[in-house]
């Protein structure tokens, strides 16, 4: 589809897109690091929320600040910050998640050219009344911090509008994910990967419009029958920055039908209550949503949720995409794997480094896995 090209261009060169966006609209841009960022508040402040993805190429500046045992995501984001390539952003917000992101915020604050820097120190527990209150307090503080940083007033009306917009976007993303499972031929994994990545970068109004078009076109497209031997996979982990994975899986006889990724379903999952006070509605979504393993909402909730996700989407197997040195995910892996095995759901572990293993090798691994399903 032609529309995909637009997304792909943004994802391939987000910085050019942002510079141009800034020039044309005069709007400010706020960088953020993870899906616990209340983008609605940034949008309501009239700024563009822009997810920092980092880089995996030519890293040398970040090596002066981070030891070898730091994950490539944190290292890559810091490299971009230090390189000056992000000079178009007006400031950054760091929601608190893991130990590495926590220190990334400190190192960024001390070393990257001063612009506004907001720490959003979220609760780690997401299952108690006091944590809920604290989360709402933190959202209120973030709103104030952002108002003073951007020199604007964020009205309740603007927040409501932002919530409505994000709700629409999230509903469309959800629809697109569902369509992908039904029509894998029309909507390739690689395309969806570009869309969701672009969704964290581009003008959200434009995103809404383009998404609507794509959903409409995909709905119209004839149902492409999945080959009966094609196996349905579900991805779980933190981020996926390798669109090649989808091609490799598809070539190996599989198809991704759903995911539990920070750059996937966790990003758009959960619709906000449009009638509730805006900040409470925003906070509530984080309490209800599937959690990042750096958060706590019970002892087995992630495993249970994953099993349920597998059932709901009738997946044949699960692929753990574990980023090297990502502690929260690595701690959860053994118990979730055990839980899946108890439910007779096969899974495979893919250790993700900065670079993927050579294409052929990975294809063979997926083929082997898919054969046993």
């Amino acid at each position, binding site marked *: 589809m032609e529309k995909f090209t637009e997304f792909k261009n943004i994802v391939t060169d987000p910085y050019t897109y942002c510079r141009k966006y800034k020039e044309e609209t005069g709007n400010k841009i706020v960088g953020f690091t993870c899906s616990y960022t209340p983008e609605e508040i940034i949008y309501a402040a009239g700024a563009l929320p822009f997810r920092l993805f980092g880089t995996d190429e030519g890293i040398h500046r970040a090596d002066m600040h981070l030891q070898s*045992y730091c994950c490539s995501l944190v290292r890559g984001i810091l490299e971009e910050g230090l390189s000056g390539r992000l000079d178009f952003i007006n400031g950054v917000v760091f929601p*608190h998640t893991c130990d590495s992101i926590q*220190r990334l915020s400190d190192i960024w604050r*001390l070393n990257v050219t001063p612009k506004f820097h907001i720490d959003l120190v979220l609760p780690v527990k997401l299952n108690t009344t*006091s944590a809920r209150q*604290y989360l709402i307090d933190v959202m209120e503080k973030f709103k104030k911090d952002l108002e003073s940083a951007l020199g604007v007033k964020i009205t309740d009306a603007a927040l409501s509008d932002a919530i409505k917009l994000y709700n629409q976007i999230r509903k469309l993303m959800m629809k697109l994910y569902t369509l992908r499972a039904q029509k894998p031929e029309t909507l390739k994994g690689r395309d969806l990967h570009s869309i969701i990545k672009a969704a964290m970068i581009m003008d959200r109004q434009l995103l809404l419009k383009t998404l609507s078009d794509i959903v409409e076109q995909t709905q119209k497209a004839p149902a492409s029958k999945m080959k009966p031997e094609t196996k349905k996979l579900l991805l779980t982990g933190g981020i996926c920055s390798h669109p090649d994975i989808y091609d490799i899986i598809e070539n190996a006889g599989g198809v991704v039908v759903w995911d539990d990724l920070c750059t996937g379903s966790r990003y758009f999952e959960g619709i906000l209550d449009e009638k509730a006070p805006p900040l409470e509605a925003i906070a509530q979504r984080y309490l209800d949503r599937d959690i990042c393993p750096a958060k*706590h909402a019970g002892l087995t909730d992630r495993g249970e949720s994953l099993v349920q996700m597998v059932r709901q989407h009738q997946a044949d197997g699960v692929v753990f995409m574990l980023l090297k040195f990502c502690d929260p995910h690595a701690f959860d892996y053994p118990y979730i*794997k055990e839980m899946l095995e108890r439910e007779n759901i096969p899974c495979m572990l893919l250790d993700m480094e900065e670079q993927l293993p050579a294409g052929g090798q990975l294809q063979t691994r997926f083929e082997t896995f898919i054969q046993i399903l």
Partner: protein
Amino acid sequence: MKKQISDLLKIIGIFLFGKFKKFTMRFKKSKTMKDIMLVYYSEAKSARLTRKKVAWITSGGPVEPLIAMDVIPVYPENHGAMIGASKMGTGLCETAENMGYSSDLCSYARADIACATVNGGPIGGLPKPDMLVCCNNICGTVLKWYEVQARYFNVPLFVLDTPFCHTGYSEETARYVRSQINEYISFIERACGRKFDYERVKKVGHLSLQGQQLWQKVLDTAAHKPAPLSAFDAFYHLALIVTLRGTPEVIDYYTALVAKMKDRIARGISAVPNEKYRLLWDNLPIWHRTRWLYDKFASHDACLVADTYTSAWCGTMKYIDENNFIDSMAEAYTRIYLNIGVDEMAKMVIAMIDKYDVDGFVLHSNRSCKPYSFGQMDIQRIVEKERGIPCLMIEADMVDERTFSESQISTRIDAFMEIIKERKKHSSSISMAKE
């Protein structure tokens, strides 16, 4: 049945041994660390017999309410240190890796998770917990680790969530942590089946603060030149302020220790025989190489006189209100050394450099501890800029020996010490010229 009987006999044995130790200790002039720890672990391991509850708790966790309720606190991190010091870490870490835990995870966590399943390690495993108390003021790792153990032992877990203080302590953080202290008290009441003892916790709070003050006094003695104790001694004596904080044993032990150090100062006895160079240590000890490192530095007449690690257990006394322990503990537990921004940590490092008048700074880049280690390179730069002293970063792991390269680290320490010696020679010739 046979196994149950033998287990029970074992526990009775441990119990009697502990009682006997405690009895004989009364006749000793000064109790040794070994005696105290033996009694402590025998009491913990025979808790089933004495009908006491056992809580596993993180090293920076709020232990005082447990002590006030006669719950025996057990510290998996202290256990991790013992495993490391007895060089049993690598084997246990490998066991955890076979269970599916990545070799990049914290080695305390790996060793403890493995140990729980095989009852291995230097003391045959820790006594089973009735509850788990996890305070995330030291890291996010303890949360995941305690989740693993809560699933394994199927016991309730309380998480004290202390929001990170990048640039200060906010009002909403204060409210959140304070309300969790109440939740914590209810949690203990449920686990113990009786009302919380608010009177007793006041006394325990006093003892805790007094213990911290005494621990600070112990560490302060190293400001004397030559230092009567080194960081390696502090690593050893630390066990009590971690595990028995809030009990009278700590007071007695550290009171005697302060006196002993003062006596050493008076008699001119130093930790390193011929102390010429004074160094500051950062991060956890490399438990499996403490002796080796002491000898290595001592061979250069260098003494690690202080460290950022052991001082963390007396670093937040300023936030404790002696007359209102329960209210003030929220802030004291939230603003500990590892739960603050890198710049604030650097300030504390510089204050220690000045206080102990050190010639160099040794940073242990610890693969197991990301919140302690990430930011170290910046702290090093700040120290070099602000104080101009040589710094050495060595990469290792506190428990897992596999990442330790002895020959490489040895060479680097030699080179580092050469720089320090040169500089000292230079600066002393300048000061002589001035005179």
